[in-house]
């Protein structure tokens, strides 16, 4: 008898709690994310994507959530791990769409994953603001998947940035025309090297060393020795994180004297400066930001405070901006109806930490930084498309 009374009381109590709780908080908006928590791309995901989602959730929920229909609705994250496996990725996105029925999703890390997931986003009308996806097929892809948006630039845009940087250095008399170029033999590296071969030659550069190396090469010293033997004025590597680190270390060891030293992904990582300290002063790489704007300064400060680490100097800010676009589009359209939000993204301009984002007729934002240079602990943009605020590149002066 006693026990029964207790159970009844407990149930009543729970009910009243539940009711009062439900009356206060609005139904959350569910945000889906499929991350590479392990596997080959996990290292990049952990630097560029995960902390920004954490930061954005913190910022939004501190205000009580997103303002929709006159009420603030908190945002709740539903996240799965795909182990950097495209088949798992597709399954997890399907699960988010049809089982968890999330309201929105954030785009994955890596070109291949964005493209593989695009048909599912399209099928369920999710707007997909791709960031870490660099391709020359933007027009074809957005024609096929009209709710897909691109923010970080095209393959050609990237190579053109690098070409302009080298041209500027050449006209300043810093370098001559001899370029040593290497690339990682994976889709990303192969594509960039292929475009670069054409653009560099067209700009009057002579490619004196042009080799690829396989993914996971344990010793890149023969590559750097080979490049050095070709006596280049500039060194360009379309590389991935582990080889960006390895090539730079070998260049220091071989004392490769060039007026321009460029490595691609991970040059913008804080860990790159952490590993090499002052030796990388003047190094060029993919990305770069304008660290001087107030919005960027505030973003970098908050990122450090909330996540305990610094953001990278490239796609971090853009990824955070993509979240801001989503946020402003949901609040602007004043609904969680995905088609309305997608239409809002297409038709409006957004104020973000990287400045204004406005998508063109092909859902592409033609505003991005493409080449950065390490200067005094900051990786500053020295080439861009549509940004107009990058500074002039300077010579790389030795490795001391």
């Amino acid at each position, binding site marked *: 008898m006693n026990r029964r009374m207790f159970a009844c009381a407990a149930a009543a109590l729970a009910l009243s709690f539940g009711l009062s709780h439900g009356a206060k908080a609005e139904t959350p908006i569910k945000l889906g994310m499929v991350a590479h928590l392990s596997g080959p791309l996990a*290292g990049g995901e952990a630097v560029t994507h995960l902390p920004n989602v954490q930061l954005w959730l913190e910022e939004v929920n501190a205000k009580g959530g997103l303002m929709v229909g006159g009420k603030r609705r908190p945002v709740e994250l539903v996240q799965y791990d795909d182990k950097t496996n495209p088949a798992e990725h597709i399954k997890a996105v399907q699960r988010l769409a049809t089982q968890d029925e999330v309201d929105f999703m954030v785009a994955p890390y890596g070109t291949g994953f964005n493209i593989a997931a695009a048909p599912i986003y399209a099928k369920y009308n999710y707007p997909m603001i791709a960031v870490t996806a660099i391709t020359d097929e933007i027009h074809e892809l957005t024609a096929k998947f009209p709710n897909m948006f691109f923010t970080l630039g095209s393959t050609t845009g990237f190579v053109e940035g690098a070409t302009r940087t080298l041209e500027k250095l050449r006209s300043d008399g810093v370098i001559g025309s001899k370029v040593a170029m290497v690339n990682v033999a994976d889709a990303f590296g192969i594509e960039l090297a292929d475009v670069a071969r054409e653009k560099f030659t067209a700009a009057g550069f002579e490619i004196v060393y042009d080799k690829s190396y396989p993914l996971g090469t344990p*010793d890149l010293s023969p590559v750097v*020795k080979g490049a050095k033997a070709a006596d280049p004025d500039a060194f360009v590597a379309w590389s991935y994180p*582990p080889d960006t680190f390895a090539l730079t270390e070998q260049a220091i060891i071989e004392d490769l004297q060039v007026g321009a030293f460029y490595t691609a992904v991970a040059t913008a990582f804080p860990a790159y400066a952490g590993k090499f300290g002052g030796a990388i002063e003047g190094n060029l790489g993919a990305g770069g930001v304008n660290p001087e704007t107030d919005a960027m300064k505030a973003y970098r400060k908050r990122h450090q405070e909330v996540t305990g680490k610094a953001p990278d100097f490239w796609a971090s800010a853009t990824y955070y901006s993509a979240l801001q676009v989503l946020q402003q589009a949901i609040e602007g359209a004043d609904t969680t109806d995905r088609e309305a939000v997608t239409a809002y993204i297409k038709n409006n301009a957004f104020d973000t930490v990287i400045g204004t984002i406005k998508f063109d007729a092909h859902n592409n934002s033609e505003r991005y930084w493409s080449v950065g240079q390490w200067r005094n602990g900051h990786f500053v943009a020295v080439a861009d498309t549509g940004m107009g605020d990058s500074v002039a590149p300077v010579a790389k002066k030795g490795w001391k």
Partner: protein
Amino acid sequence: MDIVISGLLLGGAYALVAMGLNLQYGVARIMNLANGEVLVLGGLAAFWAFVSFGLSPLLTLFLIAPLAFAGSWAIYALFLRPLVKRAKSRGQLEVDTILATFGMSFFFVGLMVSLQAEYFTYSFLAWPISLLGSTVAANRLVAALVAAAIAAALYLWLNRSRSGLAVRAVAVSPGSARLVGIDVGKVSALAFSLGGMVTALGGCLISTFVTLDASAGVLFTMKALIIVIMGGVGDIRGAIIAALILGLVETAVATIVDPGLTLVAAYAIFLAVLLFRPQGLFGRRSA
């Protein structure tokens, strides 16, 4: 000359990757698919000690050694001995250990991801040393020297001591070893733990010049399997010579032909060796 020196240094690094697995598979008959993860764990320890306490990886070696030995012993005693006991044949043991260590490799990756999801990258001894007119990285030289020391110690121990003799006996034939009064279970546990220790030490050294991450283990597991098989199962000399051959071939091809073909050449050499010597360089024909 560049090729020979760089090649030997790379070979030294490969020896670090493969010697441990050679002991584990050759003696304890455990096809350890989690070998690469143990290596990366060693690298993670070195990274963590360096970044948090400024501890030199060369000192971390001495901390890792007993930990890795004890950890491997525990894994063997808790997880692998039951499989050895229940296996009715060599084939079944192989299948069971493949499945079990595959599970362990996942577990270790998950564990490391939760500890450090980003790249383990730091700078240690990253300065040039001139060696016979060729420029090499100090950290690679150190790794190769330690590899040589470990290899020499293992070789002397296996060939000059009583316990080493017992290990070799088990490698050749566990059945006969038992007949002459060798405690096969204990020797296998010893070989497995030593193997785990050598692998973890290798990871500690390799992390000074290769940027590792929590998921990098599988690359090393595959390299180690290739080297062990190319050298011949159960012979430490085989693993070392196979490692040096791979190092030299990769460096030569990268320098003379095309860096894009280094791994192709390495695997081609491996395949060629097996086609001409199906039991590996130093292997015995199976009975």
